[in-house]
């Protein structure tokens, strides 16, 4: 009878699979309730403490998470808990302890992607950009299919380092483009970083490298006009805007294109102002 019931329950579960419960995941508190029950049933199993600690950590209940991880360490191999404890300690702001935990974990599992990423973040917050960059590189080296967003995220973290990590961030984005190809998701943040460090000339060069990828769209032309204006190539900027307007006239009106026209008008006013300033400072010089 029990066997029949199990078969029947399993059958019910299979019935539900096609319907797909993927999005119907239980809430964090429901998961904790289930893990509470699992721990009551098997109090000697460290895995359930780790799982509950992860949920508690994600809920921001750090002390509860710490207690669960410590209990798991007592019941099993502490190194196996070190990654989760390192992530927790990082979130608690205990950087030195977090670094020690992740160092210990990576000494056993040197190619663990998530641990490499976590230590890169800790090192970034410690102001250790060299270690952070090295760990991110190692992370991407072991990652079979890195996502553009991963590179952007890593670059943002590097750029926000206390010691100023713009160079490291640009290196990361360029390495991403070597691996994934010339994509706007990576080049646009790089353009912003170039501007941030005052290299408008390099920002322009990066934008121009997207010409083929973006099909010289009207938006790209307006972006380029803006970049040309920053490096005082006023006539080139003006002709880019004219080309963008011609292109827009051939396309259906969308809200995005309406906004682009407003940008064009603003840039035209800037260009006019720059021309006036230029002609008044250098009489007879036609830009």
């Amino acid at each position, binding site marked *: 009878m029990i066997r029949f019931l199990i*078969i*029947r*329950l*399993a*059958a*019910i*579960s*299979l*019935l*539900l*699979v*096609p*319907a*797909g*419960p*993927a*999005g*119907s*995941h*239980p809430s964090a508190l*429901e998961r904790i*309730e*289930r893990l509470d*029950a*699992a721990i009551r*049933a098997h109090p000697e199993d460290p895995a359930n403490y780790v799982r509950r600690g992860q949920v508690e950590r994600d809920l921001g209940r750090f002390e509860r998470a710490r207690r669960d991880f410590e209990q798991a360490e007592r019941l099993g191999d502490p190194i196996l808990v070190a990654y989760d404890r390192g992530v927790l300690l990082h979130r608690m702001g205990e950087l030195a302890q977090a670094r020690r935990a992740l160092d210990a974990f990576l000494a056993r599992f040197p190619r663990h992607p998530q641990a490499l990423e976590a230590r890169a973040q800790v090192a970034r917050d410690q102001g250790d950009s060299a270690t952070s960059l090295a760990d991110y590189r190692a992370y991407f080296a072991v*990652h*079979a*299919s890195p*996502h*553009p*967003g*991963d590179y*952007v995220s890593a670059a*943002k973290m590097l750029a926000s380092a206390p010691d100023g990590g713009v160079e490291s961030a640009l290196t990361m984005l360029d390495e*991403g*483009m070597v691996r*994934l*190809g*010339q*994509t*706007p*998701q*990576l080049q*646009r943040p790089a353009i912003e970083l170039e501007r941030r460090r005052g290299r408008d000339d390099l920002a322009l060069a990066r934008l121009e490298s997207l010409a083929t*990828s*973006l*099909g010289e*769209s*009207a*938006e*790209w032309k307006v972006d380029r006009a803006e970049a040309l204006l920053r490096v005082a190539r006023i006539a080139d900027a003006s002709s880019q805007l004219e080309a963008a307007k011609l292109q827009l006239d*051939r*396309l*259906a*009106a*969308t*809200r*995005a294109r*309406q906004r682009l026209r407003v940008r064009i008008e603003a840039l035209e006013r800037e260009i006019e102002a720059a021309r006036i300033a230029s002609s008044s400072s250098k009489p007879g010089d036609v830009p």
Partner: protein
Amino acid sequence: MRSLQGSGMRVLTWMAGVALVATAAQAEPERILLQQVGPTSALLKWRGGDADQACWARSAAPLRKRNWPLCAPAVETEGGHKQVLLDSLPPDKEIHYLIGEPGPQAAVDPALHFRTPPPNNKPPRDGNTHIWIVGDSGTATERQLNPPLGDGVSLTHPGEALEVKQGFLTYNQGKEPVDLFLLLGDNAYLDGTDAQWQKAFFEIYPEIIQSAQVVPTIGNHEMGGTLFDLGPFLGFPPGRLITFLGGTSSSPDPQSWDDGDPNTVDDGPPYLDIFSLPSNGEAGGVASGTEQYYSLDYGNVHVVSLDSQLSNRDDSQRQAMADWLVDDLSANDRDWTIVIFHHPPYSKGENHDSDVEDAEIDMREVFTPIFDEHGVDVVYSGHSHSYERSYYLTGHTGLSTSFDLATHAELDADGNGASGQDAETYAQISAGSRIDDKVVYTVAGSSGKADELNPCVPPRTLGCTPPDWLMHPAHFVSLPEKGSVVVDASRKELTSRFIDVHGDVLDAFTIRRGDPVKGPRRDRD
């Protein structure tokens, strides 16, 4: 990852009875796939058989010449596939191909051909881009139970994907061939293993995919499964029904793919090995840097395939995908823009409620404003196993309770939601706003099975229909019917039709290009 390479003389009986290329001495490919079909090039991909080259010609006859020169050697790709880039093709022409050596003995199959698109924003020479769309079609490999339940409840759906295909073929008789074959995800149940793709996809649609480019998107069942506790959803105590379930992964990492088989080494989803998707803008869209999402042009149509399953689960990846989408749509100058992804932003399907599921909410909140802003015309999703089709929408990112017809939909003369049919045909440039800012959203996840009314009895919440099943207020029509969608995109209008298993049209809408006040837009080319 499973590989069928080296399976030697395996000969499959293709269900539609379509002959494959083969000579007496050559084993047949077990699968053939066309990818990245552009005006002057195409990727021809296959697996199995002895051939290590492919040839092409404008008709079948030249392929029987011994020294026919238009041939290229295959390169090996992941998953044991072989791939040939057919290049220097003429635009807007029918191309015949042969997998193997040309010559008098070559078994040239006249059915092996496809159509290249024109080189710019124009429909093919017959005036129409013809698109077939299936969602959640992979039911041929749903698990059989042993022993069966014996209570009259069918847990599998044998033959239902074929019924849907037959419905399409019945509808399509005498009409033009398919140019694009769009997959809305969950095309190989339950885990998206290579073997499941073989049986649920390659052996179901051989005559379609050997002559039309396949454009897929990732569904939850492409990403294997995880251990999942079903008990609380069925009214049982936690921990009683923890089981490995396909389709339950919520990881953003493709390497997390797990088929639940301890005897196989999992190395990412077979989906990414089977398809060769244009991540570098090879097919006309903007380079995405990942095969998880991408875009392409085909004649007068721009197709964007977003990743609601993986990239959508991580904040930075989702944002990168959204940033890419803005650049891609900004660079798009085609007449029509079609977006596909698996998780529907508006749905009241069985177990899949867009007010509840994170993936659906994120797609609605982050991406539908981009669609509105950048002139997307139609969006197709699956996930819910029914047909749901919206009004002509704009600006709705909230829960279904916040939907207001007058605010979010195009209205007819009586103040009702316009149907998109007959006198209420939608205009690409909306009569109200005078810009291209409205989108029709369609859920078409019933190409392998359709959920049926089965009211939930508390405490059960899964595998049954809640009281508001198929009652999303953003939808003009909701049908618990199996079927597929056909889109026809001409210079002047785009028509989308839902076709049932008998070949009957159960719903249709049309969007017309041009400004309804000013008159037709001038052509761009």
